[in-house]
């Protein structure tokens, strides 16, 4: 009888240990009250971040991509503006000559400085567009052709006529239609 009881206690103990070892909530312990809701405790550290589309992928050199992802936007301008300007001049013939600007009237140094702080500006008063020919960066819609806008601002020169075969990928819309109602994105394939 004693032996059976000891065995049962032993099994219970092993079971409790096994349970606690794979359950960080540790709610088997008699001294810990059962949590009333999910446990959200702990410190969460930045792994990835993004403001405008394609900034880290296009403008940041391979060795600095991880660092860019964990640099707060308020510190990105000072750290990356000159590298972004050099990148623009290296990437695009539209910035090859002194005084070259894009269609926003920004030269490589100024545009590089704008892009280096990777935040998406959003208007709370105007309709949303990434760029519609008049309004610039009042947000980003699902349907906005952001890559072509960025290619035009990188390769298109002062009036969007330079390097025409590099300044539009000729994919202008998504493969599924978006909804006008929440949650707006299309159902998965």
């Amino acid at each position, binding site marked *: 009888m004693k032996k059976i009881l000891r065995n049962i206690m032993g099994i219970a103990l092993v079971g409790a240990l096994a349970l606690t070892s794979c359950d960080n909530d540790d709610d088997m312990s008699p001294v810990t009250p059962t949590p009333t809701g*999910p446990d959200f405790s702990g410190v969460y550290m930045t*792994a990835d971040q993004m403001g405008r589309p394609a900034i880290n*992928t296009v403008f940041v050199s391979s060795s600095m*991509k991880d660092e860019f992802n964990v640099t707060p936007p308020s510190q990105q301008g000072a750290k990356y503006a000159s590298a972004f300007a050099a990148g623009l001049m290296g990437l695009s013939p539209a910035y090859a000559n002194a005084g070259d600007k894009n269609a926003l009237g920004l030269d490589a140094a100024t545009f590089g400085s704008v892009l280096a702080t990777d935040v998406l500006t959003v208007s709370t008063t105007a309709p*949303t567009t990434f760029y519609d020919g008049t309004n610039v960066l009042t947000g980003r819609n699902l349907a906005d052709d952001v890559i072509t806008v960025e290619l035009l601002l990188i390769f298109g020169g002062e009036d969007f006529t330079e390097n025409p075969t590099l300044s*539009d990928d000729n994919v202008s819309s998504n493969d599924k239609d978006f909804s006008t109602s*929440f949650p707006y994105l*299309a159902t998965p394939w």
Partner: protein
Amino acid sequence: MKKLQKIWGVAALFAVGIGIVAADHIDAPGVQGTTADITDFYAFQGENTSNMVFVANVQGLLSPSATGAAAFDENVMIEFNIDNTGDNVEDLVIQAIPRDGKMYFFGPVAPSAPGVSSMVMESAPMASVDITAYGSQAEVATENGMTVFAGPRDDPFFFDFGKYTEIIGGTATAFDAVGTDTFAGSNVLSVVVELPKSVLGGSGTLNTWVEAKRK
């Protein structure tokens, strides 16, 4: 020798572009292919034009056959950052974090501290929604002024990445007259929150960005 010079010239021209994948899909080695890899971020005026909508997509390039098994990571918080004073420091955050099949949204609330290190602001206004299962109708909830969604969606991003790669690699010199959307037919995991513009502060313009933060 001349050929080598030409190759180097092309390489130099596109040096900063090497490794480009897409909007932010697999943008850096530290997050590539992980549950914290952001693919895209959107901020736009809602159907109700008094509202703002924020969308964060993670874990891109999911084939239909891989989508059912894809899941949000309980150790990864998605944090929408809102600067309403123009200094590029977040004044408000909206935090989305999954637990046991639900996505919990806290905010908008001032973070405990701005920057790379965050706690979940559990005392902030909260909304929660069942994470929509692959193949099921979208689960939507509205609570404390926030309308929320979490689950798999079609990747809304479109780009002829294949041709761009060829241009970068020097095997093509131009985009095609009719491009091919590299992201056609692929899915992402989406987090969507809509809320009144009036709770975001500011005087007309906000600076916004999204982070994936790992415990």
